[in-house]
């Protein structure tokens, strides 16, 4: 999928600062329909900030984000509308503790999208079934494990029928034995052709799920390549260095 036919999202010269501090310095990226992009890079390089800019959780200073004939970098964008199409799950993405699993999932479809309860509920149950958690639909979040919570969080985002999903280190705070069950859900989405941008520190997962690897450093994209190429012979020294550190960390 290196040359997708239909471009869904096109980012040009995106810049973002916090105060005087430049965090993103001219990001260019095209995302094709059905493409899975994995973003890698050292801590603090701006991966999270980049994803947050894409659904309006952070305002940007310059550049363009073309999506559905809109420019999401403009200040007057209706992000309530956009966020129904660009779903996001992040590390600290939380379920609402005062609602049951099913209430959590239905909040968006019912209150934001104003869909009928029957229809939304049917879809929610299908999705729950798929992640193996249908029997927990009336549980409260505190009764669930970290991995279960994160799978529910993904279902909650999916139940809005998004066109693009953003995942930011969704397994970072999980115990190792729970990482797998969450990553499998995302792998399943990739097989179904969901367009995704994924930030992760799981290199094996990055390699198997990604159509392209985007390597960022200090607010810039240094390298975009296929997983094979990136993990065997990255073209930049910084990427090589990053991979070396990772291998060292694993020991």
């Amino acid at each position: 999928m290196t040359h997708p036919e239909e471009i869904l999202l096109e980012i040009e010269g995106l810049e973002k600062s916090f105060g005087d501090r430049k965090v993103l310095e001219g990001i260019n990226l095209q995302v094709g329909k059905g493409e899975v992009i994995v973003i890698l890079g050292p801590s603090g390089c701006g991966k999270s900030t980049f994803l947050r800019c894409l659904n309006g959780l952070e305002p940007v200073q310059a550049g363009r984000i073309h999506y559905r004939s809109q420019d999401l970098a403009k200040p007057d964008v209706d992000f309530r509308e956009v966020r129904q199409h660009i779903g996001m799950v992040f590390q600290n993405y939380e379920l609402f503790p005062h609602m049951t699993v099913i209430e959590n999932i239905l909040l968006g479809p019912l209150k934001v999208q104003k869909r009928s309860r029957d229809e939304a509920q049917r879809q929610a149950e299908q999705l729950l079934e798929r992640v193996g958690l249908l029997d927990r639909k009336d549980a409260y979040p505190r009764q669930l494990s970290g991995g279960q919570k994160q799978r529910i969080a993904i279902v909650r985002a999916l139940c809005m029928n998004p066109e693009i999903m953003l995942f930011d280190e969704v397994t970072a705070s999980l115990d190792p034995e729970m990482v797998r069950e969450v990553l499998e859900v995302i792998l399943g989405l990739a097989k179904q052709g969901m367009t995704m941008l994924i930030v992760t520190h799981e290199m094996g997962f990055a390699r198997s799920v990604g159509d392209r690897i985007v390597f960022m450093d200090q607010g810039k994209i240094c390298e975009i390549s296929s997983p094979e190429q990136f993990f065997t012979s990255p073209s930049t020294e910084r990427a090589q260095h990053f991979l070396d550190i990772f291998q060292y960390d694993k020991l």
Partner: protein
Amino acid sequence: MQNSGIRVLFEGSNFERLLGGLLVTIEIAFISIIIGVVLGTIMGLLRTLNSRPLKAILRLYLEAFRIIPILVWLYVVHFGFSPLLGIDIDGEVTAILVFSLWGAAEIGDIVRGGLESLPRHQLESGKALGLGTRQLYRYILIPQAVRRMLPGAINLATRMVKTTSLVVLIGVIEVVKIGQQIIELGVIKAPTASFWVYGFIFILYFLVCYPLSRLSKRAERRWQN
């Protein structure tokens, strides 16, 4: 001897009088809590705004009630302000005034705590679902804040019920005062009257406060995250 002591409770209308006194107690606490919740919610919201002078003033206000005993407040308003302003403030009104202001201070603190402790991630998670500001408040912020505040508010109500016993000292006839009156009359015939009357008041307070304290424990357990 003991028999005659317990009989004092049921002589004449003593029993009803004691319950009537309890009603005064509950009334003062109840009205004060209602007013306190309304004023306190406003104060709590004001305290989450980013105004330093406002924060300082409201903080001082809270400390004033925490540091100065309620009895002193009651005296200051009843015996101090009444003559100063040239109006006669009824004991019960004084009590409600002081207890409401105290309630507002404490509820304000509870509301501020409930709002400030809401994690940023809850809001962002809601935003990421496309919820608007009003929906965020309605479905996420307020329900959670209320759950967090309820145990503290019930706890305060219990403390208020107990503290109302002080209003005897500004001449309000409530349950303890009526108990004293009954004892004064009955003690000649039955020397153990005071044991039975105070024992009964003891139980009355327990019956009012225990369910409250249970309720707050349950709310705490049920909603703790």
